[in-house]
């Protein structure tokens, strides 16, 4: 019986491959290892051994070297993560905002423990280190999106959305000097060209309804 052959990942993506390779000087071809791993990770939710070997060949290193580099990092996975890869920050500032409880809640809700993916491939759960959003703790990263100040109710809402198969847009919070209203007003007065709220060139961010409104205005105080 002939087993189906896995087509190389980059076989039908020559322009993408070339664009990535061209980023680096010719003597730095090995640098393309990480961006190539990211492409595969994002498309297939993991990097299998076959893909790793393909990338090693492209970049000109042994498969062993490629595995040594890939396995060093926490964001490349040998086995598929779920459609929604839940990464809970557990380091000090998030812990002080209840990250341990958030994690236990997700364990109960998904039935998973750290590193596991559920049978349907919907969720996987991972406990990660500081995500660099300590001012809006606790933080949950779902795939590439940050969800900041994830309260219990927010968490429920996010899970519900994901269970319906929808990937929630990032939950952006504000605080400190990362505050829109006073500054936006000031700058709107000063600058001629740009209308406030003009669409950004890249990924749209959903400013959470609460922060865009109201009682969670950081200027007036109260992290409830």
């Amino acid at each position, binding site marked *: 019986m002939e087993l189906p052959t896995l087509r190389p990942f980059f076989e039908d993506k020559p322009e993408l491959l070339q664009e990535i390779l061209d980023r680096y000087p010719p003597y730095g071809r090995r640098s393309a290892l990480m961006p190539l791993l990211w492409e595969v990770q994002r498309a297939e939710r993991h990097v299998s051994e076959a893909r*790793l*070997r393909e990338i090693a060949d492209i970049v000109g290193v*042994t498969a*062993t*070297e*490629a*595995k*040594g580099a890939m396995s*060093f990092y926490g964001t490349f996975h040998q086995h598929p993560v779920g459609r929604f890869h839940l990464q809970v920050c557990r380091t000090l500032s998030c812990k002080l905002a209840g990250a341990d409880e958030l994690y236990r809640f997700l364990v109960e809700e998904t039935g998973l423990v750290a590193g596991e993916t559920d049978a349907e491939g919907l969720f996987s759960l991972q406990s990660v280190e500081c995500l660099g959003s300590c001012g809006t703790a606790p933080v949950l990263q779902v795939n590439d999106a940050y969800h900041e100040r994830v309260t219990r109710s927010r968490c429920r809402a996010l899970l519900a959305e994901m269970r319906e198969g929808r990937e929630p847009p990032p939950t952006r919070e504000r605080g400190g000097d990362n505050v829109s209203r006073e500054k936006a007003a000031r700058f709107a007065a000063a600058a001629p060209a740009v209308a406030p709220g003009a669409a950004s060139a890249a990924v749209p961010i959903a400013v959470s309804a609460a922060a865009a409104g109201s009682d969670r205005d950081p200027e007036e105080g109260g992290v409830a």
Partner: protein
Amino acid sequence: MKVVVDGVTLDLPPGTSAIDAVFAAGSDVPYFCSQPYMSPIGACRMCLAKVGAPRRARDGSWILDEATGEPQVFWFPTLMATCTTAVMEGMVIDTRSEPVKAAQSGMIEFTLINHPLDCPVCDKGGACELQDRAYEYGEGVSRFVFDKRHQEKHHALSALITLDRERCIHCKRCVRYFEEVPGDEVLDFIERGGHTYIGTLEDGLPSNFTGNITDICPVGALLDTTSRFRGRNWEYHHTETTSLDDASGSAIVVDGRTGRIERIKAGHHPQINKSWIDDGTRFGHEYAGAPDRLRRPLVRSNGRLVETDWADAMGYVAARLAELSGKEVGIALRADATLEEGVAARALADHLGSGQLDHAPRPAGGVIAAAGHARLEELAVAGAILVVGDVTEEVPIVDLRIKDALRGVTPPRLFEHGAPIADLRLKERMPRRSGLLTVAAPVRVDLMRHAGRAAVYPAGGELGLFRALNALADGAGADGGREVDPAVLGMPLEAGVATVDALRRAETAVVVLGGWVLASADATQAALHFCRLVGAKPMPIGPMANSYGLELTGVLPSHARYAYAGMLASAKALVLSQLDPAVDSVVAERLAALELLVVHSSFLTATARLAHVVLPATTGYEKDGTVVNLEGRMLPVRAAPVDAGEARDFGGLVKAYGEAVGQRLEGRSVKGARRWLKKSLGVDLDALPPLGAWAPSKRVQARVAISVHPAAARGGALRVPTMVRAEVLDRNPHLRAATGGPALRLHPDDASRLGLRAGDEVTVTVGGVPRRLVVRPSESVPPGLVTVPATPEEPVGLVPVDLARIAVERHALEVA
């Protein structure tokens, strides 16, 4: 520079590492990650010491200590890793004070945290750097009370090396070794932090030099599978000797116990193999202990070979020889016989009055022993190298020395404690100057990966290649190169021109000539001419360990027709030592009808089965003697204490013959042979210096055997050198498992045309010699060509046979 270590003042060259200063002063610090000939990395943190140095004021003068008037010593704020610290003028190193002792015992304690308490069952016990350092520098008790990290303990990295991941202390010697020495990056760390382990994705560790990691691993994590659980290190008897597996003369240590060889380790010879040996040398000892070793002489009686004793056997031989004319007796040694055995053979030939004396294999080129050959140390610093052949298989150490040249690593200055422990000139991942290397061969060979230029020329086309190179050297390339055909060159003209230019421009240039070149006298002459044209030194690779020596001491026929091939065809009686020509059925028929066939052999070979008398022979591990390596360096061979029954070397055979005929022939003892050699070579072999001595250079008139000049063809059966000698591969089960058995290689298209698949076992008959081989399709082989392993009887070279006429018989799978 003035350096003071624990009160001892030294004068050391700039660039010396502090750790070498420590050892040069007679002090000691522990270390695990440093390794001579490899980059220092400062990872294990064992070698920490208190280091200080004086400082200069703005005006350039030393800042003085007011109390003493001497330059003040400013201690560095933290303890320094001495392996990655370069000495400075006036540096002071303290390895004895309390903070250093505390750091040392602290680091031992950390190192032992996850290290399993396996000493009672670990092969490394008694020779383990961790045990020794823990004993010397540790507190004796660990305060770690938790469960240790658990990892795989019996991971077969290959059939030859077992990895115990729990024992690994992450010194990274093995990973660095593979990148820095053979350039085969087959091992790496996987994951990070406390989860780090050693692993590979290259099945079976494809490299000819994997075994060295079992020498350099400081603990019992990487172990030689052939000797696993065979004995405790303190039980082994260690014999320092020279390997007879190839022409390099590599230093080895034979470890044995109760009369058996259990393990071979690398010996240290700074000018030949440094501290590395190839896998064939290391793991290829099992045949010496094979159960079917011949232990007693055999004599044919009533058509059957029966055991007897030496006196009886040689009595029979003497009686038969007396009935023959001595001129009709042929004597042939294998080319790895020692000089002393050669003297014995000469003495026997002289006694018989026979000019039919030879050693085999002996290449037609006949220039093995000649003046002006390049030395390995010259190769290691060459500014340009041309290799014609597959040195990675033929003499693997030459491959490693070439890689030294590619990294620009000149031999280090040796301290009293040996090669520098931390040579700061060596760094991880140094760039390779591939532009200085051209590799040419009739098939793609592994060394081409590292070469700036690779040439795959038509098989058998060595003469054409050198004629083309000579034309380019004469300026043919300059006028459009119409005289030079790139197909003959195997590479584009520009590459050929670049090769010639590189060799010309280099201060030291070396041309390595493998067996395919030397198989043809014409090609060899053309190659030597090329060397003269471009100012390069040749390095001819003799086929076996003592090709140079046996040629030098005249173990040669008195006339070309009396050479080995000739004596097989026409002698009436033959005395053959460790040779097996009866694999060829035509020769076998002739041998069966000889008046007298005496076979001196370690095993009952096909030839031995036809003999009248079979005498048990010692292997290369079991005799005392001298060989001359490819550089012309005389090196000692020392017998390990092996129980080989009544096996003797050829000198012992001649001694027994002498006793049978009442004559005291020269060379009957090693001492006697050395007296003769002292007269003829002017060298006292009883007093060889530790690194050997140069053989006197002589112009040797080689009696050239009939050489075959196959027309260069793209097709045929090419006999290729193999690191593991094909004739012993079957009796080395671990190597056989690792290599998958002797291979028939051919292009995948040819394989499918012939209906062959990878792994098929076939019998291939080329030139009358049937060989049982395993099919390995490979893109390295050009279409129309098959490669089979060479043997001493069928040395490297091309048999220009139409591929379709090579009989291949597939063996049906036996269903149990």
